[in-house]
Structures are given as structure tokens and as C-alpha cells.
């Protein structure tokens, strides 16, 4: 299909999906321009005329980039993120900028200054977050793939809730240049796909070192893996800590079925232990806010964004008012936490300790992978998608929605969520985890499961 035709059809689907509130910026005009641009490209581009949506914390020249925040309302970047340049060069069409928790801080996409995103299957529920807009658009069939970003599970968790594929690459695999920073040592541009193949093609396009990001790793870009016939020869570790007694029954059943499927396909399943993963959420909620407090200091109303001059009219008042009114509650909470844990006298007790625990968490994974385990299998989330408003008054309950996805972020490992069934109509995701830069095996194994399991099957 031509870019022009894709532009029209995608536009129609975007218009229809409007009630989800998944999109912050799109226009038929820009889509048509994208269609014309890719139609003028030589044939044979790897993502020819694939419409791709971008989380609105990835900067683009054509659309505003708000990060779901009042403080950046109307901000337009003078440059494109590296991942945007790479997508465009490969023939992809930028379809829309999607809604998110403000500055990617949240697990339900309820913390957007521009309203919450609705779950495509049940509008009373959340799509997960913080990349909820991208997840919902892919789940609703509007685009085959979308970019999100992960700091502590913000793609895998909504992928699980929405029943789509969500892949977080190894830290350093994909350039962060142009991804608005939240927790720089954790942030990863990540991918949603309707299928494993869609996600793999997009990920291989955007991966590879970037001279503009000193934390990218100098190694060959990831390739789209070759299809495997089965899982023979593969050893999959199942970490016992990720299957607590109070795990949702549907999730538990879906994971058991997945385990059996792996064995049925010739894979070996082994029980393993990752004892320090239990500390991942508290560790994450020290490191990520600390980095965020510094990363968000630039939104001061001096150079760009919404400036609000306070009552006193001086610079301190300008800072206070711009930031006090421009940031939402969850962002302010994390800036305060982050500032506190880095303060003189608290640094060692919090930030330094958290870094030590982070190293222990990463070490657990290393040991397991060194012991002959090729991949790990866990639930992506403890429950299926929850109701809107259910956790907004209890930040810690919200944070615990990421309990199974945080550890891999702290360890910088590639991981993904694959839909493996439904519980009372709601999607359930299984999480696969690979060693550093093991994306190709991760995706190849996921593809075998995708081919042989019905993601729509009721598990209860």
C-alpha cells in the first residue's frame, strides 16, 4: 500500500480512536505529507509506509512535544530525536504523538495534564503507563507499531495491560538523544508492536550507537531474528520470587500455560532465584527521582515553555510559580523525593545505598544467566489492567504495579511482554528477559510462542 493511502486510512482510524484520548498531536495534513515523503523514497526501505506513533516525550520538529505536561504546552523542538530520524530514513511515517503520564512518571496514564487514556477494551480501566497512549493505539489497531519509553517498565506494563507486544532493549542499544530525560541511567526508547515481527523490525531500525549519546554502546545494530522452528535447546529460568502466593489467579494460570507451552516446544524450564529483585521498587524510587529532580531542573521558564512570573516578580518567584503551576502532583512528588535523597547528610543513606542494591539486583541476573539459563520467564504485571482511579490516591500501590518490570530496568537488561491469554476478557502478558544484548534470541523465542499460543484464549 502506498504512503498516501496509508496516510488516509491511518487518519481515519485515528479519528475513530479519538475517544481513547490516546493522542496528543496529529493532523491529516502532516500524515499526508508523511505519505508523500515516503512515496518519493526509493523502493525497498525496511519500514516502507509503516505508520508509527511516538510517545510525546520523543522530540519532533513537525509536532509539539509536551511530555503530557502544562510546563511544555506548545513547545516545539528545533530538532528530531535520533530515533525519529532513523524511522523516517527507513520509510516509516510519523503518525501521531501519544498521551503519557506527565514526564513518563506513572503506571496508568492517568497523570497526564491532558486527561487520562482509556483502555481500548474497557474504557473504565487504565491502559497502563506511562506509555499508555502508544499501547492503546497499537491495541486498538490504529498503528501496527509505536514508540514508547521505559524508565521502570513503562512499555512492558502497558503492553501487558493492552494485549500487545512491548519490548525494552538493553540500556545503550538505542539512542536517547531526543528522548526527554526522566531517569537517565534507566531511560530506554522502547517499542510496541501488534506482532513480535513488527516490534523487531522497528527496534532493529532504531538500534545502534549514536555519536550524540555517549551512553549508547558501540556494537552492530540489532538484526531482525530468523524464525526458530521450536524451542529445543533453550533453557528458560522461572524465578520463584516473581510468583508470589497472592498473584492474580488469571495471571498465574496464563503463566503456567506459557511454561507448559515452552516445555511442549522442547524448551527446558528451570526454577531459579533472584532474591534481590524484591528490593527493586524501593531502589528504583530513589534512583529514578534523584535523576529526575536534576533532569527536570531545566524547566524553569527562562528559555522555553510556559513562563509564569510570580507575585514578587523576581527570579525566585518566577521559578516557584512556573514550576509549581507547570508540574502536576506526581512530578512534584518525585522532584521532592529526588531532591531529598541527594541532600547533604542523606546521600549515603539513600542514593548511595540504592546504587549498591542496584548492583546486587543486576548481579542476581548475571549469576542466573551464567548458570546456563538462556531466558527468564515471569509475569509482566501482578494483575490485569486495573480500574481508573483505583490507585491514584495511593502512590505506593501504583508503584507496585511495576514490581515485576523494575528489576530489569535497574539491571539494564532487554525484556519484553508478550500477550499469552486473557482473564475475564482482559489481556495478560508474559515477560521474557534476556542477558545484555540478547534481543535477537529474546525476540526469536517470543515469536515461537506467539505462533503457537492464542493470545485471545480465556485462561480461566
Amino acid at each position: 500500500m502506498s504512503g498516501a493511502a496509508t496516510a488516509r486510512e491511518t487518519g481515519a482510524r485515528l479519528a475513530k480512536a479519538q475517544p481513547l484520548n490516546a493522542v496528543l498531536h496529529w493532523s491529516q495534513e502532516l500524515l499526508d505529507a508523511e505519505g508523500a515523503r515516503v512515496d518519493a523514497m526509493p523502493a525497498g526501505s525496511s519500514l516502507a509506509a509503516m505508520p508509527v506513533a511516538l510517545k510525546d516525550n520523543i522530540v519532533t520538529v513537525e509536532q509539539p512535544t509536551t511530555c503530557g505536561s502544562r510546563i511544555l504546552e506548545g513547545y516545539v523542538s528545533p530538532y528530531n530525536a535520533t530515533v525519529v530520524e532513523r524511522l523516517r530514513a527507513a520509510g516509516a511515517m510519523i503518525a501521531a504523538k501519544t498521551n503519557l503520564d506527565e514526564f513518563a512518571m506513572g503506571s496508568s496514564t492517568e497523570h497526564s495534564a491532558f486527561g487520562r487514556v482509556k483502555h481500548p477494551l474497557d474504557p473504565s480501566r487504565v491502559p497502563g503507563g506511562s506509555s499508555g497512549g502508544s499501547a492503546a493505539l497499537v491495541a486498538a489497531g490504529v498503528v501496527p507499531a509505536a514508540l514508547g519509553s521505559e524508565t521502570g517498565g513503562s512499555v512492558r506494563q502497558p503492553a501487558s495491560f493492552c494485549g500487545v507486544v512491548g519490548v525494552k532493549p538493553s540500556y545503550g542499544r538505542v539512542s536517547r538523544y531526543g528522548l526527554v530525560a526522566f531517569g537517565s541511567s534507566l531511560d530506554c526508547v522502547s517499542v510496541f508492536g501488534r506482532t513480535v515481527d513488527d516490534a523487531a523490525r522497528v527496534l532493529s531500525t532504531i538500534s545502534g550507537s549514536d555519536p550524540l549519546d555517549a551512553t549508547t554502546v558501540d556494537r552492530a545494530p540489532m538484526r531482525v531474528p530468523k524464525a526458530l522452528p521450536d524451542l529445543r535447546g533453550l533453557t528458560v529460568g522461572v524465578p520463584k520470587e516473581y510468583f508470589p502466593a497472592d498473584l492474580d489467579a488469571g495471571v498465574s494460570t496464563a503463566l503456567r500455560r506459557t511454561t507448559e507451552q515452552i516445555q511442549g516446544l522442547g524448551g527446558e524450564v528451570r526454577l531459579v532465584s533472584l532474591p534481590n529483585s524484591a528490593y527493586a521498587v524501593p531502589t528504583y524510587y530513589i534512583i529514578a527521582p534523584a535523576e529526575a529532580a536534576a533532569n527536570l531542573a531545566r524547566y524553569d521558564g527562562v528559555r522555553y515553555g510556559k513562563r509564569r512570573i510570580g507575585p514578587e516578580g523576581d527570579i525566585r518567584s518566577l521559578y516557584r510559580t512556573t514550576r509549581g503551576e507547570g508540574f502536576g502532583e506526581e512530578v512534584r512528588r518525585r522532584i521532592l523525593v529526588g531532591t531529598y535523597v541527594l541532600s547533604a547528610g542523606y546521600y549515603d543513606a539513600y542514593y548511595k545505598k540504592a546504587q549498591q542494591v542496584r548492583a546486587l539486583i543486576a548481579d542476581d541476573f548475571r549469576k542466573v544467566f551464567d548458570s546456563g539459563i538462556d531466558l527468564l520467564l515471569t509475569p509482566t504485571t501482578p494483575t490485569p489492567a486495573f480500574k481508573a482511579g483505583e490507585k491514584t490516591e495511593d502512590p505506593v500501590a501504583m508503584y507496585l504495579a511495576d514490581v515485576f518490570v523494575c528489576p530489569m530496568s535497574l539491571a539494564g537488561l532487554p525484556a519484553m511482554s508478550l500477550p499469552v491469554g486473557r482473564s475475564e476478557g482482559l489481556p495478560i502478558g508474559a515477560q521474557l528477559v534476556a542477558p545484555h544484548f540478547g534481543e535477537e534470541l529474546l525476540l526469536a523465542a517470543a515469536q515461537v510462542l506467539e505462533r503457537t499460543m492464542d493470545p485471545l484464549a480465556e485462561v480461566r
Partner: protein
Amino acid sequence: MAWETVIGLEVHVQLRTRTKMFCGNRTTFGDPPNTNVCPVCLGLPGALPVPNAEAIRLAVRGALALGCTVHETSVFARKNYFYPDLPKGYQISQFDRPLATGGSVSFDSPERGRMQVGITRLHVEEDAGKLLHDRFPGKTAVDLNRAGTPLAEIVSEPDLRSPAEARAYLTTLRQILVYAGVSECSMEQGSLRVDANLSIRPAGTSRLGTKTEVKNMNSFANVERALEVERARQIALVESGRSVEQVTLLFNAGTGQVKPTRSKEESHDYRYFPDPDLPPLVLTPAWIAEQRAALPELPEAKRARLEAAHALSAKDARVITAEVGLAHYFESVVDAGADPKTAANWVMGEVMTTYNESGSFPVPAARLAELIGLVREGVVSHQAAKRVYSELAQSSDQDPRTAAARLGLVQVSDQGALTGWVDEVLAAHPDEVARFRDGETKLMAFFVGQVMKRSKGKADPKGVQPVLQERLTVAADR
């Protein structure tokens, strides 16, 4: 009571790179506001820093020139504070793992002779922008051209004991850094800035007193002045029974006073932490060794060598090596065949004058060597050579011999011509001739001067005196 002054200096120098510390913008001084900026140094959303390899190389060079240990691993850290000239709300600096530590600088203290100052550390960081208060009435403007400019911060031990010593150390430090090619070290252009810490204690005691920090000095002379003022202020405080408070003071060169900044701004907790955007900076021992080997000759070594190789006096060697450009020029003149002592006199005279005025060496070293040769051969007088030098400085494409000829400055030693001028002088001064013949022989100098004047400096002074002697004697015999 006798007081001992304790001073330590923090010196920021701009590393001599073409581009900024973490992006590709130019570092040119004096461009229109906000023209050398990009997403990175403006702190735009999503932009990331990438270290400038040349800045690292220069900082390592500086560290090695100051005798520091350069660490194989150092870490960039964020220093967090809000200020409108700081685009990201943090400065990328280094904190607990700096690039280099533990160096020392030898310098001549005006009071204590040859001394050493310990260098605590040298680290790299980025500069902030500038606030402009005079562009728009009642408003402050921000110019971010300077934001992200690479700096090395050089922290000394509190080893200095007087304001004059602080100045002497700064002079030596500057020399070393300029020699090593690390920085232009120009205080006027802001490529060298000094923050000084000063405290006093009873002479003979070892516990440090409460220190204050003095900022905003725009010359080494003002560093000395400001520290004199601050020392006197602290002594007066303590002697009147009060105590010194730990404050930051700004020096006002106009009033010669120091004034505390508002103490609120001093309660900063910078919340340093490692910058997650930048992996630790890892340098291999081989690369560090390469940088050490590539270090140019430093002032002290050059001074010693000039003294030894060219028999220069210690004082001359010091004057000539004070500026690396002057030293290089001197060596080129000598290499081109000039006598070292004569070359030294030229360099410390005419050459230094032009250099101080124009900052350049308009007469190529080979030309000056040629000119020195002409003086030695008696082709031009020393006086005339100075005029030839000025002529060459105007347009350097002439050779000295042609220029001297064109100016009519080639000396005349022809007997006939000299006798002519001598006779004219003697005829014009009958009284002096009579007095000379009566034994007032010191008038010889007067006659020589008159002959030089009459010949417009062209007469060869060595040839004039015998002719004078002869003509004065001949006349007396008559």
C-alpha cells in the same frame, strides 16, 4: 599580635578548544549574544552531552604540567543549582573523582624565596552563561554563548602566606599553562578567573582560622589588592574581639572594598551525583604517557636552558621566558645566527615594547638577526638600527640592508667624508676647540656628538674619534 595569613586559590581557566565541552558550538569570545548555541548547551529537552576529546587532552596536559597524577578513571558529576545563566539547572563538573590530583608549582615568593604550592586537584567542567544587566532597562538578559565552554578548575593547597605571594603564584601558574598550550589565560577575556580563600591565625600556630572567599577580581594586581583588604579586615575584626564569619565577598575594584554577597545564596547544597548521561572517563596509562611525552618545554626548564646554553644572566632569562612567545622569538633570533647577548637586549627592548603594544612580532626573527649582523659589521649604528627596526615593523617584507640604505642610515667610515664633517664641527665651535687644547679633553665626547649630529647619525662613531684627535692635534702644532 603577629598574624599569619593563609591563602588558597581556586583558578578557572578556559581550555583552548575550538568548540564547547559537550557540544560542537564555537567558543569564540565577543560574538553577538546567543549565536553560539545549540540544543545541548541551551539545555533543550532531550539533548545530551558528549565530551570534547580535545578539552580532555588539554586538561590532562595542564595537569601533567602542574605535576599532578592523572587518574585513569574520573567521573563527571552534576552540580545542582538554579540560576538563569545555567541552562540545565545543573553544571556538569567533577566532584569526588576528579581528573587529576596531587601536583605542585614552584614559584619565587617575594618574601620567602623559592617556594612550592601544592595543587590539590584539577578537574574539568563546563562554564555557565552570562547575565547582561545593561541591555534592556529594568530587565536582565541572558547570553548563553559562554554556556558549555570547557574549563579546568585548579585548586591549590592553602600554602600561600601573603597577597603578594598569591600574585606571584598566579603569575607562575599562568606561565606554565600558557607554555603548555592549555589556555590563553586572559583575565580580560575571562579565560582565567580566580576565587581566593583567605584566613588568618596567630603566627606560629597551625590550626586554620575561619576562611572567607573573595571573588570578582579582574587582574592579578587586583587579586593582591583584594586580599590585602580582606586580610586587614579580618585582622581588625579579630583584634577588636569579634570573629570572622565564613562568607563570600565580592571585590569592587572601583572602591577597593570587599562586600559580602547575600548570605542566603551561600547556603547551597549542590547535591552532587554522578552524571548518568556520561560514562566514567577512562584514560589508558599509555595515552597519559603519550601526553606527558608531548608536553612542550615548560618555563622553568626553558629558563635554565637559556642560562646554560646562551650564557644569559638569571634576570635576563627570567624576563625573556616570562612570555612563551617572547622566549620562542628569542630562540629563533639566536638560531638565525645572532649573538645571544645582543639578541637578548633586543628582545628585552624594542621587541618587548612592540609585543606589549601589539601582542605580536611584526619583524620576523631572521630579519632581526640580519639587522644585528649589520650592527656588528658596522654597516649601521646601534641607534640607526632601532630606526631600521621600526621601519621593518611597519612592513616586514623588506630586508634590513635595503631598508637601512633607503633610510640613508648606512654608516659612513670613509676618511674624506668624516674629515669634512669634523672640520665643519671644529670650525663651528672655536671656543670648545680652544678649551680642549687647554687640556679640557673630556670635550671629546661633545665633538663626537656634534659630528654624529651633523652627519645625521651616519658617521661611524668608531672612525670619528681618531679623525677628531688628529685634526685637533694638527691644528695645535701649527
